[in-house]
C-alpha cells in the first residue's frame, strides 16, 4: 500500500499518571525547532503547558512560539484530529497524550480507521522509581502491563532516581513486558524529538537531519546510493543489534524505485513511493548503544 504524501503522522504517548507525559510534551514543544507540532492532551487533562512557551490562548487552543499548538481533545479525539487535519496550515506532526488508563494500542487502532493520518509510533512512559510497584498493583497493574505490551518505544523517565543495579533489573522486566519496544532512559522527559517523532519529515516537505544534541542520544545521517532489499534493511535496523530507536528515510530498492523506510522500536515499515526523493537515512539511538559503524556498513555492503 502506498503512503499518501499528505498523511500526517500521529504519535501516541501513553503511560500511567505521574510517568511524565506532560513533562515530555513540554519538552517536545520547547524543542520543536521549527516543526509545527500539534499536541492533543487527554480527556482528563488540564493543559499544563509551561507558561513561557505560550504565545496565545483562545477557545482552549494554546498557540506555542514557533508554530506549535496544543489543546485538550475533550470528549472527542477523532473530531479533534479531523479538525487539525483540515486546518490551515495543517500540523506536520500530531502528538496525542492519552489518559493514564488508556490503552495506546486501542487508540492507535482507532486512528488507523481515519483517512489523512497515519499512526507513527507508540511511546509509553514509565516512572523508573514506581513502575514496578504499579505493575504489581491490583487495580492498575494489568492496565500498565497492557500499555507496555503496545509500546514501540518505552521511555524510562526519572532514571536519576534509581541506582544502576535497580536500572538493570528494571530494564530486564521491561524487556519482558514490552517485547516489541526499544527502551530509552532519560530524566525530566528529555527525549530528543527525533527519537519520539522520527527523524525525517514527510516526503513532501523536504529533508532534515537528526541534529539534536543531547547528552543521552546520538544520531547518524547517511546518503546511501546503492540499491537494497529495502524490507530486509528496515527489518534489520528495527530488530537487529544496532541500537536504533527510530530510523526514517528513503532508500533505493532493487527495483530502482525509491522506498520510504521507517522503524519505530522493533516495528518497521518499507513502502515504495510514487515520487523520487533523494536517498537518505537517519537513525537515532541512545549514546553508546547506537552502532554507527554497523549501520554504515549495512548500508554500504547490502
Amino acid at each position, binding site marked *: *500500500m502506498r503512503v499518501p504524501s499528505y498523511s500526517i503522522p500521529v504519535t501516541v504517548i501513553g503511560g*500511567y*499518571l*505521574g510517568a511524565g507525559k506532560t513533562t515530555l510534551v513540554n519538552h517536545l514543544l520547547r524543542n520543536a525547532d521549527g516543526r509545527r507540532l500539534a499536541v492533543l492532551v487527554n*480527556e*482528563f*487533562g*488540564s493543559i499544563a503547558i509551561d507558561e513561557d512557551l505560550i504565545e496565545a490562548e483562545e477557545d482552549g487552543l494554546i498557540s506555542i512560539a514557533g508554530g506549535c499548538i496544543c489543546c*485538550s481533545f*475533550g*470528549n*472527542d479525539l*477523532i*473530531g479533534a484530529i479531523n479538525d487539525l487535519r483540515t486546518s490551515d496550515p495543517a500540523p506536520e506532526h500530531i502528538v496525542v497524550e492519552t*489518559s*493514564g*488508563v488508556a*490503552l495506546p494500542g*486501542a487508540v492507535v*487502532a*482507532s486512528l*488507523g*480507521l*481515519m*483517512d489523512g493520518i497515519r499512526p507513527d509510533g507508540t511511546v509509553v512512559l514509565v516512572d523508573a522509581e514506581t513502575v514496578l510497584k504499579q505493575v504489581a498493583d*491490583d*487495580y*492498575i497493574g*494489568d*492496565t500498565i502491563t497492557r500499555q507496555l505490551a503496545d509500546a514501540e518505544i518505552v521511555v524510562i523517565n526519572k532514571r536519576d532516581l534509581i541506582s544502576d543495579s535497580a536500572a538493570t533489573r528494571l530494564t530486564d522486566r521491561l524487556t519482558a513486558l514490552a517485547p516489541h519496544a526499544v527502551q530509552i532512559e532519560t530524566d525530566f522527559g528529555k527525549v530528543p524529538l527525533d527519537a519520539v517523532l522520527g527523524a525525517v519529515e514527510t516526503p513532501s516537505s523536504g529533508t532534515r537531519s537528526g541534529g539534536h544534541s543531547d547528552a543521552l542520544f546520538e544520531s547518524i545521517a547517511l546518503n546511501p546510493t546503492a540499491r537494497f532489499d529495502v524490507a530486509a534493511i528496515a527489518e534489520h535496523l528495527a530488530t537487529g543489534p544496532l541500537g536504533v530507536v527510530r530510523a526514517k528515510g528513503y532508500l533505493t530498492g532493487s527495483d530502482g524505485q525509491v522506498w520510504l523506510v521507517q522503524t519505530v522500536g522493533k516495528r518497521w515499515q518499507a513502502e515504495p513511493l510514487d515520487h523520487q526523493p533523494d536517498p537518505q537515512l537517519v537513525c537515532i539511538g541512545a549514546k553508546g548503544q547506537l552502532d554507527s559503524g554497523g549501520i554504515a556498513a549495512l548500508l554500504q555492503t547490502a
Partner: protein
Amino acid sequence: MTGTTIYAARKIITMNPNQPEVSHVAVREGRILGAGSLAELEPWGDYELDTRFADKVLMPGMIEGHAHTMEGTLWRNVYVGWFDRMDPDGKVWDGVKSIEGVLDRLSEAEAQMTDADTPLSGWSLDPIYMDNQRVSRQDLDKVSTTRPIGVLHASGHILNVNSKALEQAGLLKPGVNHPGIPLGDDGMPTGELYGPDAMTPVAGFVGYDRAMTDCDERGLLDYAKLCVRAGVTTSTDLAARLTDDSVSMMLDVTARNRFPLRVVPLRIFFGMSAEECVEYTKALKEQSTDLLRLGRIKAVADGSIQGFSARMRWPGYHNGAPNGLWYTAPDQMSELYNRALAAGIQVHTHTNGDQATQMALDVFEPALRANPSPDHRFTIQHCQLADAAQFAKMGKLGMCVNLFANHHFYWGDEHYRLTVGPERAMRMNATRTALAANVPLAIHSDAPVTPLGPLFTAWAAVNRITASGRTQGEGEKIGVDQALYAITMGAAYTLHLDAELGSIEIGKRADFAVLDDDPTAVDAMALKDIPVWGTVQGGRIFPAAEL
C-alpha cells in the same frame, strides 16, 4: 394557583410512616398543604374538592435516579427491540422476534422516508434473544443500498451498519485492521462494529453522532412524555456534558408552562480535569431552578459486564475473558472525590464490576477523612456485583447506592450462563443486602438501556425474575413496600431532594403518580402491569391520555 384544591382518592400511599395511607391530599401553590382525611384538611380554609381521582390510587411522584433523557431522542429512530415498548406518544411497539422482522420493520420505515440521503437509524436490537444471530451489512443492504443504515444494540456497545454507511465512513475497503471491526471472507468489514472505538467513525453517518447523547429540545419534550406515562415526576439525566447551549435549552424547556418533569442532570467527569469539572459544576449549581437541578457530577469507573469491560476482582469473568477497562484512573477518581468533597459537590460514580466498586470505596475513604462531610451522600450507581462486605463499607462511609434492578430481568440469564456465572449472578443488584447494611437504596432503569418505568423496576427488585422466567437470587428479593420506597424516597435521598420530594407530606412538592390500581394490594407479580393514568407535577395535572 393560590387557591386550595383537595383531591379525594381511592387511596393515597404517602411514604410517611406516621400515616402510610390517607384518603385526601390538599394542594396549594404547587405544594402539599396537607395529607389526611377530609376532616383533617378542612381547617386550612376555603378549598375546592376535586374528585377526579376518586377511583385512583395516588403515590408520590416516582423518581428515576439513573436514566438518560436521550431516550426521548432515540424514539425518532426505528425501534427494533425484542420486548414490547411504549413510545412517547403512547404507542406500544411490538417486540421484533427475528432478524427478518427487524429488516421488515426497517424497510417499512425506509419506504416512508422522502429524502434520499437521510440515514435510517434503528435502536435496541438485542440478538441475545435470537440465538445471537449476527446482522451483516449484506442483511441491511436488503433494506437499502443507497441510504446509510445503522442499528444500535440495546447494550449501546454494538452498531450494525450497511455497506453505504461503511462506504461513507471510508471503511468499505480491505485491509481494515481493528479489533472491533470483524472482516468477512471478502476481506471487507462485515458491518458489525464492536465498542465505542469502532462505532465512532461510522456512527455520525447513521444518525448516531456524539451530540445526540446531549438530548435536544424535542428529545427532552418527548422524554418528559415518557415520564408522565411511567408516573415519573423527577428524573436524572445521568451523564450530560452540560454545555452552555444544552443548559440554556434545558432551562428554556423546563420553564415552559406545561413541562411536566423536574430534570436533574449530572455533569460527566470526562473531557476536563477534576479541578475544572468541580468548578464547572459549582457554577452550574447556581443556575438551578425548581425544575432543573444542576450541580452534581457523574464519574465512570469502568465499563459494562455484558461488554466484558467492567473491572472484576479475582477470579474474573466466568468465561475467562480478560479483565475490563478503567474509564477513570484510581488517582483521578481520588482527586475528583477530594475536590468535590471540599467544594460540597456530590458525585455519583458508575461501577459495574466488583473491583470498580472496591476501587471507588478505597479512594473514597481517605478522601472523606481528609474532607469531613457528614452528609455527602456520594452514590454508587449500578454497583451490580457488590458483595456484603462492600455494602457494609458503603453503609459505614455514609454512601448511597442505586442498583440496576432492571438489568436482572433483561440480562440476568446471560450473566448466569456466561459473564459472571451462577453464584455471582445471584448476588447481582443485591437490594436486600444493601438495605441490611443501612445503605440508602434507589433502583433504576438506565433508560434507554432498559425502558423507563419505576413500577417495572420495583417489580424486578421484588421478584428477581429473568427474561427466561427463572428466579435468580431469592435471598436478595425485597418487599413491595421497600421497592416502592426505593423509587420515591430512596431515589430522592440519593439526590439530596428528600426534604422536598419523595413522599406525600405537608410542605413537599405536589408531585404524584396517579395509578389505576393499588401497588400494595395487587399480586407482586402484577406490579409492573399497573396502569399509570398520569401524574400531578407541582400541582399541575398531566393525564397520559392527553399528552
